[in-house]
């Protein structure tokens, strides 16, 4: 949470762009990660993140501070943008336009090549989870959000979030195990 966040938000709500700039700088990376882990390409992630912050800037006066950080509100906008993205993508997907290189996390984390192979696998596995499980996993383990914060974003009880988290971990392990077995099988052929 940004220091003196309530004051910054009030200023931004009064139409002061410099203060919204502070919010943008602070929350850009987590929102970008959240979106990037759910879409196929870096370009799509950038477009969606731009839309998220543009929408937040246009509607910031609708934000009510109810004890949760501003990030909860941003995650909610991001979540809806991703849902819309998949809704329209389903109708427009053309397999010839998909560039495999865009799937690689390597574009985002170029420095550690060895880890990237595994990270790609983890990213692909996360993408195979259901929407709620993806959200909980990313918010909890990548962004270190608390259970109350996640429950505010997803509008579910904390108990439900813990349950979703448990299932997400089990499913993720299963998916990765299967992917490793498939890869090993291919090497022997």
């Amino acid at each position, binding site marked *: 949470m940004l220091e003196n966040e309530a004051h910054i938000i009030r200023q931004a709500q009064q139409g002061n*762009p410099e203060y919204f700039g502070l919010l943008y700088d602070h929350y850009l990376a987590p929102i970008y990660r959240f979106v990037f882990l759910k879409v196929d390409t870096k370009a799509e992630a950038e477009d969606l*993140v731009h839309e998220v*912050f543009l929408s937040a800037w246009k509607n910031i*006066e609708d934000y009510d501070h109810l004890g949760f950080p501003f990030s909860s509100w941003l995650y909610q906008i991001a979540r809806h943008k991703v849902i819309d993205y998949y809704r329209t993508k389903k109708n427009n997907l053309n397999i010839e336009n998909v560039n495999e290189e865009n799937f690689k996390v390597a574009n985002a984390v170029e420095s550690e090549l060895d*880890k990237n192979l595994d*990270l790609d696998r*983890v990213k692909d596995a996360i993408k195979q989870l259901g929407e709620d499980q993806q959200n909980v996993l990313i918010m909890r*383990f*990548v962004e270190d959000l608390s259970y109350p914060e996640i429950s505010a974003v997803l509008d579910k009880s904390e108990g439900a979030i813990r349950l979703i988290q448990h299932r997400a*971990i089990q499913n993720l392990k299963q998916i990765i195990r299967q992917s490793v077995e498939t890869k090993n099988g291919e090497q022997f052929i």
Partner: protein
Amino acid sequence: MENNLFNKIKLLKQIRPEAGFALSSRRIILDTTKKSHYQILFKKQLQQTFILSAAMGMAVVLLVIVGRISSLPLEGLSPELISSLNSKDLTLEQENLNFNIQLAEAKYYKESTTQVTMALNNDLDSVAMQKQAENINSLIKELAL
């Protein structure tokens, strides 16, 4: 495996947007003309006023409906309908209904008992007559011998 998995997930935190994208997106967003503070306040005020007047309107409509029902003129209505609105009349009607049902049951049992008795008597008579006929037949046979 679980710890390793969590470590791998944590590594995803290294993902960051490109600096070029961050700068250009920021500039475009902040250059977007935003409504002035007064316009925003006016919009909010307008929304609140609309919600308040809608709520008051609904309350007035409800009050009018309730008032109309309680002051309905009963003179123009049929006696059956008026009595159906009176709880005392309804209770009395229900009690009479029970009483009538009990009377009907008593009448049925009385009639059915008489009919059953008569049927039984008829049966007994026919059995006695059959026995007498058998006796006469046996006497005629003896006399004939």
